[in-house]
Structures are given as structure tokens and as C-alpha cells.
């Protein structure tokens, strides 16, 4: 494991770099019922590890990442719980302390590479800006480093690209540029929020390969947020499946794919179109939509859409059955109880 060399302050690699405990995010608008977007999420990210957060739209995966980064708007949101990064609870840091951490220790990559770049300044300026901010470099000192970074993320002719504006780059190049910006100050944790969703399939594969390569080379821990189980299968060491703001199943990549326990995970896996399926076979989507959720405190939120439902599902909240490596939250798991 060569990653260990780059781990700076953790004495042992098994000690988590980021430890999220009972994270809760509530949206409260005036005169409206509070909405629990994230309802008690806990997970660990160890140095060099890649952790996936998987779920459909509205399950709280993006909100989780924005809450950890301290990027949720202050008004109308309450964030509770802990997100301990390197000994400090990120959620209780002051805004300016958090600003110093963002970009330097933790960075983020977003979904839409075009709208995430500033259209009126050059790529080079956007990459050097981060280094000027966190490493106290002058623009002159930062420019050759920016060219190196662009080279490292696979942008051809990096020196010329520095002078380009975002619209002059292709979609894949833009996402590479965003990755370069995020990696400019060698953060120890990278959060990627659906980094391949806006790209076409061949470019998706290239970007995922690049992320994998960078994670292995630099020892950066990666939190991969996605709705695409294919991405998870290729990249993640550990997978957390979210539903309605709670983690419903967790497991290593192999275990989870080989023997999913929670009916929702099973549904997600079944709904993937397969090339080797016989012609004419219909897809198996999970019935219903997120709008059918029950509140977690008195039932299982997934119960209305669940094919494995038993009576107790609508009366009681299922407890977490397992530990912080594997587990699920279900009364009637696929394959019987543990």
C-alpha cells in the first residue's frame, strides 16, 4: 500500500480521515412543514479509501456532501450531528476556518462541468486562483504548476489551454479542468458529486479511470456520490445505499453486489439494463417514487414501494443491523436475517 506515504497526520491508516456521525439536515421554510433531507447518516472514510454514496434523486446524497463542506445556505437549514475531519468537527468550525479548509484539505467536483466553471475568466486563472488562495503563491509561481496539473489530468497541450476560456473546451476537458482545480492543493479528501452524469459514456469511462488513477497515485480519499451502480462497482471500496435520508445498506463492493440484503438495493441492481439479458425481457424498475415515502420515525420509509413488506414495516422504524463496515436496515431482508 503505497498510499501510506502521503498520509500526513493519521497515525494509522485504519483511523478514519472523515467520520460522519448522525448527520441530520432539515429544511425549514416559513409556514411550511420541516423536511428532513438527511436523517441521521453515519459513515467513515479512511485515508486512500473510496466510499460510494448511492441512491436515486432526492435521497439526500448531494445534501450530505454540501453539509459536510459547509456549503448549504445558512437560512432555512439546520445541520446537526458531527463530521470529524482530522480531529476537528467541520460542522462546528467558523465560516472562515471552514473556508481555509475547503480547497486545501477537502475539495469537491460537481456534476455539470460547464456551469461549474466561470465563463468569463480563463482556465489557467481559475486553477491558479486556488493555489494563490491556499498556498500563498504568486500568479507567476502558480502558472507553471497549473500547467503541470492540467497535464496530469490528461489535458493535451496544457500551456496553451491555460489561456482558454471554458467554452473553448469540450465537456470531458472541462471536467478534467475542474478536477485539476480540485486537486490543485493536494486535498486529502475529494468529494465527487455525480462527476460523470453530464458526460457521454466514453468520456465517463475516461473520467472514472482518471479519478481512479489519481486516487491511487496521491492517496486521496474519495467520496463518490452517484446514482449509477456501474460507477460504484468500478471504483468504490465501500458502498452506502441511501434512501429517504438514511443509509439503508452498507457493504464492501463485492459483498453488496454479490449478496444485496436490503430490498431497495436489490431493486436498484435489478433495474440496471443488462446486455446479456434475453431480448424482449422487460426492465424491472423499483415501483413508485420517492414522493411515496413514509416518515422514518414511525415506519420504514421504503415500505410503500417494497415487495418484501411485512406488517411491522409500516408500524416501526427498522434498526441498523450490522456494524460500520457491513449492515442493513430492514425487518425482512432478502436472504433472511443475519
Amino acid at each position: 500500500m503505497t498510499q501510506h506515504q502521503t498520509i500526513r497526520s493519521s497515525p494509522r491508516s485504519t483511523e478514519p480521515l472523515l467520520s460522519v456521525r448522525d448527520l441530520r439536515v432539515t429544511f425549514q421554510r416559513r409556514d411550511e412543514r420541516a423536511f428532513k433531507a438527511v436523517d441521521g447518516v453515519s459513515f467513515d472514510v479512511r485515508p486512500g479509501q473510496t466510499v460510494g454514496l448511492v441512491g436515486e434523486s432526492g435521497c439526500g446524497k448531494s445534501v450530505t456532501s454540501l453539509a459536510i463542506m459547509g456549503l448549504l445556505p445558512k437560512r432555512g437549514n439546520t445541520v446537526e450531528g458531527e463530521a470529524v475531519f482530522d480531529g476537528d468537527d467541520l460542522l462546528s468550525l467558523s465560516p472562515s476556518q471552514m473556508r481555509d479548509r475547503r480547497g486545501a484539505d477537502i475539495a469537491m467536483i460537481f456534476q455539470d462541468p460547464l456551469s461549474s466553471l466561470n465563463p468569463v475568466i480563463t482556465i489557467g486563472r481559475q486553477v491558479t486562483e486556488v493555489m494563490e488562495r491556499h498556498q500563498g503563491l504568486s500568479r507567476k509561481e502558480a502558472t507553471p504548476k497549473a500547467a503541470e496539473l492540467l497535464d496530469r489530468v490528461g489535458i493535451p497541450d496544457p500551456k496553451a489551454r491555460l489561456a482558454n476560456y471554458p467554452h473553448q473546451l469540450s465537456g470531458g476537458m472541462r471536467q478534467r479542468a475542474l478536477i485539476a482545480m480540485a486537486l490543485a492543493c493536494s486535498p486529502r479528501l475529494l468529494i465527487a458529486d455525480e462527476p460523470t452524469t453530464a458526460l457521454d459514456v466514453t468520456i465517463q469511462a475516461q473520467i472514472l479511470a482518471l479519478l481512479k488513477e489519481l486516487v491511487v497515485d496521491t492517496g486521496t480519499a474519495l467520496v463518490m456520490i452517484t446514482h449509477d451502480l456501474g460507477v460504484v462497482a468500478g471504483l468504490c471500496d465501500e458502498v452506502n445505499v441511501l434512501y429517504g435520508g438514511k443509509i439503508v445498506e452498507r457493504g464492501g463492493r463485492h459483498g453488496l453486489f454479490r449478496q444485496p440484503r436490503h430490498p431497495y438495493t436489490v431493486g436498484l441492481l435489478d433495474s440496471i439494463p443488462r446486455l446479456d439479458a434475453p431480448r424482449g425481457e422487460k426492465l424491472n424498475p423499483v415501483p413508485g417514487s420517492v414522493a411515496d415515502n413514509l416518515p422514518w420515525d414511525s415506519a420504514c420509509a421504503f415500505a410503500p414501494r417494497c415487495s418484501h413488506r411485512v406488517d411491522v414495516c409500516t408500524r416501526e422504524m427498522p434498526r441498523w443491523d450490522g456494524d460500520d463496515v457491513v449492515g442493513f436496515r430492514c425487518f425482512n431482508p432478502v436472504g433472511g436475517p443475519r
Partner: protein
Amino acid sequence: MSDPIDPAVAEDVRRPSYGQRRRDRIDALAQAGAVDDTPGVSLIRGAWLRLRRNPVFLTGAAITVCFVVLAIIAPWIAPWDVTARPLLDEVRPQTNPVPGPQPGHPLGGDDRGRDLLSRLIVGSRQTLIVGVFATLFGLIGGVILGTIAGAIGGAVDSLVMRIVDVMLSIPSLLLAFTVASLARSPSQWTLIVSIAIIQIPIFARLLRGSMLAQRSSDHVLAARSLGVKKRAIVFRHMLPNSIGPVIVQATLSLAVAIIDAAALSFLGLGNPDQRQPEWGQMLGLAQRYISEAPHLAFYPAGCIIVVALGFTLMGESLREALDPKTRR
């Protein structure tokens, strides 16, 4: 006897107030410019390609360029000095107060025997100076207020915008008139300041609207996620992306500023010094002879109309070219 609600009255009730209509117009403009689906540079390049073939824009630009060039070279091409009185001998206060056109004086003279054409040509300078400086100061004031409101938000935003709304609810010329009449001795600076003040709320509201759209944009979120400081976010990421509609509005405001300046000057609130002719001032002086010599009013008024038209045509076609909704 008829219906309890007279349709005409009901119509009137539904009609938004004066201030509301002005606010809506400004917001629509901010919205149009804030749509961020095309990147900045190609948007401008696309707009230029469309403008180059747009006869309306070309007409407006031609008028504007002629006017600006005229104002710059005015003292050299004016056939007579504006203070000289070559036609003094022709003035007969009782029978012929205003000398008509004659050789060497194609437009004739004014009531003091000065050459009208020369005064018209030189008058373009004052008009341009007042229009440009009033718009410039209004732009600066509006950008400062709009940036404060859009960048800080919250209570500061509410406070600034309520002040702006109050100013917008007062008819602009009336407000300018009030401000101008506070001056001890009127000069062209009175005009500039009072017209700048009525422009400030327009620019402020416009900029604040597009700043707010920028604040929730993806690239600002991305910059925040990299720990970029607030000041850099405001001045490097938000302001350059939201200034577009403000610049377009400035082109349109130039025309309004010129007309308003002429109006105030006509009412005697401008520069009274006749050694510095100005079209609004000339219009005011022409009042006395409006029945005997209507051409004395016609020429400066015509100049004001043509110049204002030039700026408006240019500004409107610029706005249309940059507005994604009207793009073909």
C-alpha cells in the same frame, strides 16, 4: 344602476402602479441577461455577428458616431464663434427679431444676431458631456449600491432595495427637477448630478437582480467549494458575469439622459451661460419667438430627437442581440 364594478374602473385597479411597472421592466432586463446557458465570450461574439447585419443597429450606430465626432471637432468646423454677433445689424426688435437664412448663415441667426448653425454645432458638446457624465455617475452609483445589495444580501439588501424602490416610485423627471432646483446656481453640473441620481436606482436594481442569479449559480458554488474568499467571489466571479445587462441599460440611459438634460435646461435649471450653448437652453430661449420664428425651436429640438433616437436604436438592438429569448 349598471354593474357594481365598472369594467373601466376594474381595469384601472388591476393596472400595476407606476413604480411597480418600472421595477418589473428592470427585473425583466436583469432576467434576460442573467440566463447563463451560453458562455460569455461566445455570447458576445454571437451578438456581434447578429448586430453587424442588423440595419437598426447600424442606423443607430451611424447617428451616434456622427454625433460624437461632431461634438469632438465642433470648435474647428463651426463657421462662426458662438459668442460673435455677425448678424447684429439684421436684428430689428420690433419688425424682424430673428434674422432669417442668408449667404454665410444657412440657418440664419438668433435673437442676438449670433449664427444659429455654429451654436447648434457647438451645442452638441454640452449635450454629450451632460449625457455621458450623468450616465457614468449614475452607473457608478448604481453598481456600488447593486453590488452591496447583491453581494451582502439579507438586511442590507432589503434596506438598499427599499430605498431604491422609493426612488423608482417617484417619476424620474420630477425627481431630477426637485434635485436640480436645490442647487444655488444652476450649471451643467446641476444637470449631471440630478440626472445621475435618477439613474442610480435603475442600475442598482438591475445589477442586484443579476448578482442574485449569480450567487446561486454552479460556478460560484464551485468557487466556494475551493475556499475562494468572499471578496474574490464577488469581484471575480459574480460581478463580471452580471454586468452585461447593466452596460446595455447604460446605452439606453444615455438617450434618456440627453432628453432629460434638455428638458431641465429648457426649464431654466441648466447652465444659464449663453457663451456655452446647449440644445435645451437654446430651446428655452426660442420660446419667446415661437410664433415669429418656429425654426429657432425646431433645429435644436430636431437635433435632440435624432441623437436620442440614435442611442435608443443602438441600445435596443444591443439588448435584443444579447437577450437569449429574442434570439433566432
